Every structure is written in structure tokens, then in C-alpha cells.
């Protein structure tokens, strides 16, 4: 069954990945702490509300007088004698409220427990066993979900004579009509847990199913179960209040709902006896609110993305005084070509609890039409560098000092770190475009390829006619070897390689002078990867854009780039022509990176690379798993 997805299904949300080089190293032993609710104001407020009302319900009735005692003091406003006033028949509202709170809490907890047990039973077992069991369980829960609960409860309550309508009857009916939503959430999570390695290992090891469920799966579901329980309690208290308000609650019960029923029927509204009908609803609202706040804290454990980082999606911040300082001339050999992008003394810091210096004093120069390789293992800060250069970094990342200058075709120098608002928006993509690491997910899944290409043109070239836009979109697709028929496709209809080509086509739409490519081919298989790289080289030759190519694959860069910068822990440890880097690596880390890619023939000399010449006349060979890159390569 394709079914509606519950509002937040943790299983379907990828865990929040910290920006490269930020979180992972920052919290070596924070894993356990991350499991506990952070002591946010929300959680504390919630706990105070719930505890206070819980204590009122638990101990209040011991101190309150008889809630049913009738007196002559009808409709007394709050004051001496009756702290919260009296009802139509002169009963003490405070005494009634305390007893009613106890009654509502009792039924809420009872139903909460029963509904959670039911949902766990159906959700976890269905998710774990799969097959027919799962099919029928989830069909059952989906049907229960779409049949409106309260009307059903009302009908059932209507058939049971008032005298037989006991406390348990109501509780059971509410539990039976209230378990389905939670069951679906639990099922989804169980499905994802079931496919984890340790569960698979336990199954292979021949452990008994009940043991796997209770030892391997259940503990991981606890936060979710807790959150569903809290929901169930809120829902039960609300539903019971509704039923009682209609006069269909358990007979002889005293809950907040019955209080409101008597208030409504005792003309509290018409007599403006607010002290009679306001407090019961307020207690329900405050208790529900307290539980919901606690749920927030639990949700933040399950889905760390929801945690409130103080700063939102503001444009990448630049610390005061960052720009301006004229950088040192780039290390390595002076560029023969005129520069198109100069990075000097760039520092990027993640302002987290323990600040991480992700990019340290990086200075690089990108020549016009040059391919600059940026190599390093994951977490070395290369992606952070790329984001900072294009001003896409988001808080807590911050450029603390340095400068990035773009030397435009017309000779104008643009200080990238000083661009703001419309200027920055207009600069993006027009002069510098990007192909992202997660290029597989860089396309919006719900709008067509055509629209995603065309909106770049409508925004940046408002003068273009629809016909011109269509022609340009088709043209760039052809450039990367994708049939323009694909314009009407949606991303899910394309293969991974084709999506990547579309992204490259998109990056070329405005004929930018610089393209930053962050691991553009890492997720693709080798043959597709080769094809795309060949395409990039060819297009670079035809269109003359410069490329910053970021990857962990140093041999690939040796083949592709004019110059290479090797990054380690945020620093550029070696920067020079690809040729020299290959023949005479200076830094031990570069040597280590080179050695870590074994070749089939064993010796490192197997890299038959002949520098720029080989690349240009298309005779480049790579060792090992790589197929030939250039089109003319002998096979």
C-alpha cells in the first residue's frame, strides 16, 4: 500500500550531516549526551507544568473538601470561603477541579498505556516480521486511521446504556480507536532498524525473534515510544473530555469534561460564571501543552535537525575585518595565465560550542581556464572552502579573515566577501557556478528538469523570450550529451549519471567563468565517471571556463588538473603543478596520498602520465581501475 506518511517519520529523514570538517571531530564523547534531552527552556517548562498538574491531581483531592456538597451559595465568584467560587448548586469549584483533574489524569494514563501497547504490538511486530503479517497489520491500522475516531466512540457509547458505561469501557474504547497513528510511525522505524547490520547479525546468529525484538530493536525505539505515549495521553484526555462534555463519559466519573458538561448545562455561560468553565479547560490545555513541550525535547533526540541552532539560513556571514587584507602572493609557481579568482589568507571557523578552525589561512590562485585540483580526505575542509568562496556557508560557519577576489572578464575586480543582497544574488551562477557533492540530490524532485534549468534564465536574464530560454536549455543539455527530450522529465526518471550531466549543463547555462565541482563523480560508477570527466575536459577546452575540482581521489586529479592543492586539517600543505606534485611530492602527506592508491602493476611508476601534453593530445592513461579518460586513448 502506498500510504500517507505521518508528519514526521524519523526513519525517512536522513540524519543531519554536519558540515564537512565541523562536528565530527568536535565532539569526541558527545554521543551519549546527545541521547539525553537537552535542558532547553521548553523541556523545563513542560516538566514543571506536567509535574505541577500531576501533583495537584495526586494530592489535591486529599486536602479539598467534598466536591459534591451542595450549599445555598449559588454562583459565588472566587473569594473567601470558595477560592475558585461555587457552581449553580453551590458546590466548591476548587474541590471539583482537584477531583476532576485526578479523574482526567487517571483515564489519560490508562488509555495512554493501552494505546501505546497496542500500537507497539501492531507496529513493531508488523514491521519486524514483514510479509503477510505486516500487510494485514498496516492495512488494519490505516483503515482505523481514516475512520474518524470520535464519531465511532460516540456511536459505541450511545449503544451502551449509561448505567453500564464504566470507567474501563470508556478507556478500552478510546484505546481501540486511538492506537493507529502511533503504530504506523513505529512500523516505519522498525523497518529501518530491521535492516541495520546488528539486527541482521543477530538474525544470522540464530537468535530467537522475540529476543531480537526485545533486545536489539525495542531499546532503539524507546524515544519514539515515549513520544507516542505522550501523544496518546494528550489525545485520550482530550477525547475523554469531549465525550464527557457530551454527557457520554463513564457514569459516576468526575473528570474535567464532566465539569464542563455541568457548567454548560448549569448556564455558566449565560450567567458569566467564568470561574466555573475556565479552570477545567485551562488545566487540560496546560497539561497538554506541558506534554507537547516534553515531546519537543524527545523529537529533538530523534531528529537532531529540528534542534534550534541560534542562527538560521542567513547568507554566509563574514566577520568584520575579514576582507581587505591583501593576501600573500600564491605559493607555488606563479600562474602563467591571468587570474580569475584569488583567494588569500582565508580562514573559516565554525562557531560551535568548541570552535572548529575548518579552513586555515588558505591562499590559492585560479587562472583563467585552468583546472585547479583540490585534494584531501573527507573532513579536511575542502568543501567548507568551496562553500566559503561562493558565500554559501551558513552559520555557525563564519569567514574570520582573508579575502576572495574575482577578476571579471571586463577587467573589474569583485570583492566576493563584500557582496551583499541583490549583488551577491546576481553574481551567483552568472560568474561562478557549482556542481555539488550530493549532485544526485541536487535536483528538486518535484519539478521538471526544464523548470529547474529555465528558472536560472528567468531570474538572471529577464530579457530572454520563452523561445530563447527553451533553445538555451536544449543547447546546454546537448553540450553534455543529454537528449533535450529529457527536459520534460522529472529527476527520478533519470539515471545517476544523467542527473550529474544535467547538473553540469545547468552550471554552464549562464556561461560562467568559474565552475566549482565538489566530488562531482564520486557516487557514479567508473565508466560513467570517465565519460563525464572527458566531457568536462572537452567543454573546458571549448568554452574556456576555469574549474576548481574537489575530490579525495588524487590520481584522478593528477590526470585532470593543471595545478593541485593538497589540503590537510584545513591547511594547504602542498600547492603546485600537477606534474611536479606527481614526480616530486614535497610534503609527506602528499606522498602518503599518492601511495594509498595502489596500481595493478605494483610500482608507483605505473602512472603513465605525461603532464599537460598528454592531456591535450589525449593520451592519458591511468592505472588500476580507471578506464581511459581521453576520447582518443588507445584501447
Amino acid at each position, binding site marked *: 500500500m502506498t500510504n500517507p506518511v505521518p508528519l514526521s517519520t524519523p526513519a525517512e529523514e536522513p540524519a543531519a550531516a554536519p558540515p564537512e570538517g565541523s562536528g565530527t571531530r568536535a565532539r569526541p564523547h558527545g554521543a551519549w549526551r546527545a541521547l539525553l534531552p537537552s535542558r532547553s527552556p521548553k523541556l523545563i517548562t513542560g516538566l514543571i507544568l506536567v509535574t505541577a498538574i500531576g501533583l495537584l491531581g495526586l494530592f489535591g483531592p486529599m486536602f479539598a473538601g467534598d466536591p459534591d456538597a451542595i450549599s445555598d451559595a449559588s454562583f459565588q465568584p472566587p473569594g473567601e470561603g470558595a477560592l475558585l467560587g461555587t457552581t449553580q448548586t453551590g458546590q466548591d469549584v476548587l474541590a471539583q477541579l482537584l477531583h476532576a483533574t485526578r479523574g482526567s489524569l487517571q483515564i489519560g494514563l490508562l488509555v495512554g498505556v493501552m494505546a501505546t501497547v497496542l500500537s507497539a504490538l501492531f507496529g513493531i511486530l508488523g514491521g519486524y516480521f514483514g510479509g503477510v503479517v505486516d500487510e494485514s497489520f498496516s492495512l488494519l491500522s490505516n483503515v482505523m486511521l481514516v475512520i474518524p475516531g470520535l464519531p465511532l466512540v460516540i456511536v459505541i457509547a450511545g449503544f451502551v446504556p449509561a448505567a453500564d458505561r464504566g470507567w474501563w469501557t470508556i478507556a478500552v474504547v478510546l484505546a481501540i480507536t486511538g492506537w493507529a497513528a502511533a503504530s504506523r510511525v513505529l512500523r516505519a522505524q522498525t523497518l529501518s532498524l530491521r535492516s541495520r547490520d546488528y539486527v541482521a547479525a543477530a538474525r544470522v546468529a540464530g537468535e530467537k525473534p522475540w529476543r531480537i525484538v526485545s533486545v536489539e530493536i525495542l531499546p532503539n525505539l524507546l524515544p519514539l515510544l515515549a513520544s507516542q505515549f505522550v501523544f496518546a495521553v494528550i489525545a485520550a484526555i482530550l477525547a475523554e473530555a469531549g465525550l464527557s462534555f457530551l454527557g457520554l463519559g463513564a457514569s459516576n466519573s468526575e473528570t474535567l469534561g464532566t465539569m464542563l458538561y455541568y457548567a454548560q448545562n448549569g448556564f455558566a455561560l449565560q450567567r458569566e460564571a467564568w470561574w466555573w468553565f475556565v479552570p477545567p479547560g485551562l488545566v487540560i490545555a496546560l497539561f*497538554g501543552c506541558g506534554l507537547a513541550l516534553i515531546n519537543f525535547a524527545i523529537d529533538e533526540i530523534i531528529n537532531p535537525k529540528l534542534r534550534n541552532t541560534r542562527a538560521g539560513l542567513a547568507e554566509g556571514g563574514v566577520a568584520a575585518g575579514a576582507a581587505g587584507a591583501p593576501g600573500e602572493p600564491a605559493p607555488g609557481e606563479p600562474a602563467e595565465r591571468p587570474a580569475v579568482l584569488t583567494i588569500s589568507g582565508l580562514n573559516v571557523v565554525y562557531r560551535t560550542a568548541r570552535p572548529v578552525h575548518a579552513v586555515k589561512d588558505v591562499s590559492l590562485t585560479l587562472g583563467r581556464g585552468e583546472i585547479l585540483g583540490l585534494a584531501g580526505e573527507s573532513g579536511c575542509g575542502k568543501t567548507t572552502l568551496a562553500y566559503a568562496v561562493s558565500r554559501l556557508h551558513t552559520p555557525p560557519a563564519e569567514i574570520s579573515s582573508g579575502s576572495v577576489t574575482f577578476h571579471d572578464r571586463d577587467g573589474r575586480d569583485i570583492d566576493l566577501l563584500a557582496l551583499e543582497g541583490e549583488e551577491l544574488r546576481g553574481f551567483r551562477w552568472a560568474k561562478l557556478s557549482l556542481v555539488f557533492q550530493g549532485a544526485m540530490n541536487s535536483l*528538486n524532485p518535484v519539478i521538471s528538469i526544464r523548470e529547474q534549468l529555465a528558472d536560472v534564465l528567468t531570474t538572471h536574464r529577464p530579457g530572454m523570450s520563452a523561445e530563447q530560454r527553451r533553445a538555451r536549455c536544449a543547447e546546454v543539455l546537448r553540450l553534455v550529451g543529454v537528449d533535450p527530450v529529457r527536459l520534460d522529465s522529472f529527476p527520478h526518471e533519470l539515471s545517476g549519471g544523467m542527473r550529474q550531466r544535467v547538473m553540469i549543463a545547468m552550471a554552464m547555462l549562464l556561461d560562467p567563468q568559474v565552475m566549482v565541482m565538489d566530488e562531482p563523480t564520486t557516487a557514479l560508477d567508473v565508466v560513467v565517471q570517465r565519460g563525464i570527466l572527458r566531457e568536462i575536459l572537452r567543454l573546458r577546452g571549448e568554452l574556456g571556463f576555469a574549474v576548481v575540482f574537489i575530490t579525495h581521489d588524487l590520481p584522478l586529479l593528477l590526470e585532470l588538473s593543471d595545478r593541485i592543492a593538497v589540503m590537510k586539517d584545513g591547511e594547504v600543505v602542498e600547492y603546485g603543478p600537477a606534474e611536479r606534485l606527481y614526480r616530486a611530492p614535497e610534503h609527506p602527506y602528499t606522498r602518503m596520498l599518492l601511495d594509498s592508491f595502489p596500481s595493478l602493476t605494483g610500482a608507483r611508476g605505473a602512472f603513465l602520465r605525461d603532464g599537460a601534453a598528454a592531456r591535450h593530445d589525449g593520451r592519458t592513461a591511468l592505472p588500476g581501475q580507471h578506464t581511459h579518460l581521453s576520447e582518443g586513448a588507445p584501447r
Partner: protein
Amino acid sequence: MRYYARKLGFYLVALWAALTLNFFIPRMMPGNPVDTLMAKLQQRGGTVDPAARRSYELLLGADTGEPLIIQYFAYLGNMLRGDLGVSVSVFPAEVSSVIGQALPWTLVLVGLATLLSFALGIVLGAVVGWRRGSWLDSLVPATTVLAAVPYFWLALILVAVFATALGWFPLQGGYDVVLTPGWNTGFLGSAVYHGMLPALTIVLSSVGGWLLGMRNMMVSAMSEDYVLTARAKGLRTTRVMTRYAARNAVLPSLAGFAISLGFVVSGSIITEQVFSYPGIGSKLLQGVQNNDYALMQGIFLVITVAVLGANLVVDLLYGFIDPRTRVET
């Protein structure tokens, strides 16, 4: 096509389940509802003709010795023909005509209020999510208070403030009783005026849930690569927010519509009671209070069909909005 067929199939199963529940509930309950009903009917001077008795027996079950399965199919036949029996409390009106009178009131009130609250919640949620970290975040706890407030209590408060104390709105009813219902401005104006407070109740109580769900999905969507790409493309912020982030974030809210709609409808039924609104919720309670079992069951079925129908529409819409559901999986 398969997506639509599966959806349609599911709702047929759900409908069948509701009909079956409706058949078995009275049979599982203690007592003999048919006798209660007949006694009541006689009290009111109604004639007990055999056809009416037969119809009740099928609906509620009686010890006639007839096999359950025969009763079941005869019952299903009655339901499909729209024969829901005769109402006792409004004797001799047919249940279907009683429902027919009340249904438009509820459909318009609950339908419009739900649409309004959904739209409002989605828009606000998108904005609050987009501006995460700003002062707007303080709205989030506020919505939880609203969501935890019982509908009917909020209705009571609104009545106390705006009807009793301030006198801005009428205390109860669906229209001014001196007017005759019909398509004239006087009556329609009066109906809108009377509907304001009930609609406000439903919107206020349900908007928080939509808002919160949308906000959370927005926060998730904003960390997606396609949103980063959209920003890098130099698109205007409004476009990134709407076409890229919100367009994706709204999908789970739509998919979760079923769950939420159930809550809204349940809440609205009780709200109608507070306002003595001439809708289906008030009629349901009238049925319960008068042991008018046929009316009760008829209304339960109609509400269920309406909710299933609304969900089906949303699901079909979903297939249209999310291109991924249209492919075979």
C-alpha cells in the same frame, strides 16, 4: 494509473470496514435495541409496520433466527440503496432526509474552516521554518497551547467573550430563526454571521498542528541539496523558499491529511454542540440522547464517507503534485 487504482482500492476497503463495524457494533452491545426503538416509536404514536421493523432488525440485529450472513448481505444491500431506516426522534422522517438537511451546514462550515486553517498553517509554517532562529520561533510553543486546548472549551470561551460579554456575535444557532432558509442575501448573510464563531473555533484549534508539521518539514527540506543548489543558482529568496523548500516540505503535510482531518472532524462535532449549530454533529447527539440508533448509525456512516472522500481527493491531488508517486515502484 496503478497509484490511483491502489488508492481507490484502499478507500473501498476502508468503506467496507466502516460498514461492517456499523453492522457488528449494535449486535455486540448488551440489550435489545430494536425493542427499545419500537417501544419508543409506539410512545410517539408511530405505527409499527413490518417493513420498518425489518429495516431496524437488519441494522441493529435481533433474535429472528436468521443467519448472520444473510442479515449482513441484506444490510449491505440496504446501505447501498441509501436506505438508512426511519428516524425515531424526528418520526416519521427517513434518516437519509434528516441527514440531508443537516449535512450542508457541516460540510460548508467544517470544509471551509479546514481549508482556511490548512492554508494558514502551511503558509505560516513555511515562513516560521524558513526563518528558523528568529523571533518567529516563539510562535511554536504558542501553537502547542492552542493544539492542546479542547475544541469545545475554546468554543465556550469564544462564546463567553464575543457573544455573551461583547455581544458581537450570536450565542448559538446557524441562522436567524425569523428568516426562511433559501438563496437570498438576508438568509445567507445571517448564516455567515452565525458561522463566524464556530469557524473561528475550528481554525484556531487546528491551525497549530498544520503549522508545526509544516515548520518541521521545512527545516528538514532546507538542509536538502536542492535548496543549496537553488541558492547557489542565485534565485530570488522567495522562489527558493516556495518552489524548492516549501514545495517539497508540504508533501508530508498533505500525506498526513488523513490523520489530521479525523481530529478536525471529531472536534467540530463537539463544537457544533456548543453552538447548537444545525449540523450533523448536533443531529448525532440528538440521536444518541433519544436512543435513535438508526440516525446515529446513519450519521456515523455519512461522516465516515465524507472523511474518506476528502482523503481520497487529497490522495489524488498528491499524486498530481508529487511526480514520484505516478511511476510504478
